[in-house]
């Protein structure tokens, strides 16, 4: 019998002696450049970190190369970050440049530290999920190629967190990102009556719909969807594979902006809808890419030092945001879900 329930490897077994020695005894850090940090411990010891974004979808051979580099420069220790960057942990300052050179040689550029765009959070997309409205990795690659200068150079007013989720399930913290791309559907799912009868629990399907758009159709042992009430969340499809919601002609991406999770200065905020829809344009999604670039450029130019994306918009106002970005404001931008009313402007104060 194989053992079960023994848990993950102990983190201390994965840490260098220097890290263990100074565990919980770090004193301060300094940003050396957009790819390098140094942490100084109470006892004066220093730990250098070289960070690089990764595509997250990594082949084991690439991971082995990372291991080789860690063996060469870091006594065999490295880590990943909460945003899927890799961090090499060096004790010897003189190893920094050689490591960076090796990384560059394999196509990885250090970056993402300080007031930059760090690695772009994302999800499975067409690589592995059954519910996406857009791909994940392809859009991320196209976007990151375009905004790469913001990843390597510290020319933003504050850090900017980009992310992508390929459907409304929003795997990842996409709903609280500075700029987020979300896959959306735009037409109600199709009910395949015969398959529903065979594969699905009608009561569960009916209960799954948040807008009560689904009612049972007992005659067919299936369900009927009231198209007027459906807002294409795909939740019925999650419950019942016989109600596919895909539509290549209509699926695409929405863009949300202004979220954050840190409480620094302003408490964490949700991202808000900026662009309701951009069609899928594989392989390089030029419209999404252009829009994201524009959204970042405008912010980089207009925000004050230290202002995150949402803090900038709070200061100038959403009226102005739509003006300076040139994006159209539509009925889609006005909330009509459960918590809508508190988002309405119950004051005669606003900018023209």
């Amino acid at each position, binding site marked *: 019998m194989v053992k079960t329930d023994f*848990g993950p490897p102990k983190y201390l077994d994965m840490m260098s002696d220097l*890290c263990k020695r100074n565990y919980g005894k770090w004193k301060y850090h300094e940003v050396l450049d957009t790819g390098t940090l140094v942490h100084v411990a109470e006892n004066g010891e220093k730990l250098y970190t070289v960070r690089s974004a990764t*595509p997250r979808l990594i*082949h084991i051979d690439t991971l082995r190369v990372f291991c080789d580099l860690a063996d060469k420069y870091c006594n065999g220790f490295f880590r990943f970050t909460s945003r899927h960057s890799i961090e090499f942990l060096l004790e010897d300052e003189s190893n920094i440049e050689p490591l960076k050179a090796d990384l560059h040689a394999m196509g990885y550029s250090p970056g993402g530290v300080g007031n930059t765009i760090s690695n772009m959070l994302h999800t499975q997309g067409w690589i592995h999920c059954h519910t996406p409205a857009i*791909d994940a990795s392809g859009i991320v690659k196209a976007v990151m190629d375009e905004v790469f200068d913001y990843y390597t150079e510290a020319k933003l007013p504050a850090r900017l967190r980009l992310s992508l989720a390929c459907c409304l399930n929003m795997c990842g913290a996409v709903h609280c990102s500075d700029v987020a791309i979300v896959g959306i559907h735009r037409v109600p799912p199709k009910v395949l009556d015969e398959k529903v009868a065979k594969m699905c629990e009608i009561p569960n399907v009916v209960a799954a719909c948040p807008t009560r758009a689904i009612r049972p159709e007992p005659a067919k042992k299936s369900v009927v969807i009231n198209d007027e009430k459906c807002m294409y969340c795909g939740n019925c499809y999650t419950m019942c594979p016989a109600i596919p919601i895909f539509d290549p002609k209509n699926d695409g991406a929405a863009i949300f902006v202004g979220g954050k999770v840190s409480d620094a200065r302003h408490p964490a905020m*949700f991202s808000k809808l900026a662009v309701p829809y951009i069609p899928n344009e594989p*392989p390089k999604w030029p419209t999404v890419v252009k829009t994201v670039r524009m959204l970042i450029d405008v912010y980089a130019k207009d925000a004050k030092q230290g202002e995150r994306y949402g803090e900038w918009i709070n200061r100038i106002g959403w009226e102005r945001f739509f003006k300076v970005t040139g994006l159209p404001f539509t009925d889609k931008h006005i909330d009509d879900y459960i*918590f809508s009313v508190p988002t309405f402007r119950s004051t005669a104060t606003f900018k023209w």
Partner: protein
Amino acid sequence: MPELRKTPMLDQLLDGPFPSFVKEIKKGAEKNEACNDLLGQLELSYEEKITHWKHGGIVGVTGYGGGVIGRYSDVPEQFPGLTEFHTMRVNQPAGWFYKTDRLRKLLDIWEKRGSGLTNFHGATGDIILLGTHTDELQNVADDLAHEGWDLGGSGSDLRTPSACVGPGRCEWACIDTLDIVDTLTRRYQNELHRPMWPYKFKIKISGCANDGVAAKARADCSIIGTWKDNIQVNRTEVVNYVNGGFDIIGQVVDKCPTKCISYNPVTKSLSIDDNNCVRCHNCINKMPKALRQGKINGATILIGGHAPILQSAFMSWVVVPFMEMKPPYTEISDLLEKIWEWWDENGKMRERTGELIYRLGMRSFLKATGLPAVPQMVLHPRTNPFFFWDKEEVNQ
């Protein structure tokens, strides 16, 4: 080994400064048929603008209810290597720290028994092993177990908890994020591996208000380090910052949300009215050498976060303003267990903890957990007059 699939669209994503995922799949395709088929199916998705994955049937590993996501191609005739292409979630070490020798073992197993493709890491925090056959699942799990790697969560269970790097490499960790996540994960192996609840439950732990693991946004239970006493000011370092040209007024004084910092340009001294500080962490972020957090540390516990399905995204909200976080972390465990019991009893299928609280009211949650109502739980008290009274509170 047949030729590599032709992927004219995907090939356009090979160049450019950002590392290419297509290159990674191609690496795999050279030695693994499934990877080659993945290239092909992805190219097809790019042409047709639609996914080609089907809903998963339930697959798994003996003794575990979760940890595997079943996945099947809907065009297996064209891409036989993807007929079954399941994902396995492997529980990462706390803080995503790795020693190369341990990791290489895992990679070898995955070379032998899977596609060789991975995610380092999944959005929840697991190591994702991307794609293998049904009949390899048990083997992978066994081999992993042999090398000390256990599975993560999936389905209606506790999901793999995660934490920011914390004391491992950060001066701002008010709590031992790594020890907490490790302890809780080990304590709740049964909850993690055997789905039994109304829906999933996530725990994320950040050492300070910067929330480096985005806990508030994506965990049902978010644990955020904080302090109770005063920010420590190093006067000499303040002067150094100012002399170095740092815009102390613009970046620190003016940005303090409660305006409780004052700076005297003549004496170059900064003082903080800690009584009105809300511990947002901005001033410390901006002057790490000059300012340090207080010394009485613990955590704020927030509950209810999740993504938009079904009722809109919720960010977790405060339920315990301050909890000491000392091993063996009994207090947080007690709370978690009470919450799970209440949720398990009252939650509808696919109702997250936050949604249940929304439906039944904080009142009901507080009663179940025995937590006292405190103003820190709300941004402001209710504006409507529709509040409930218990039978015991009214005159009969």
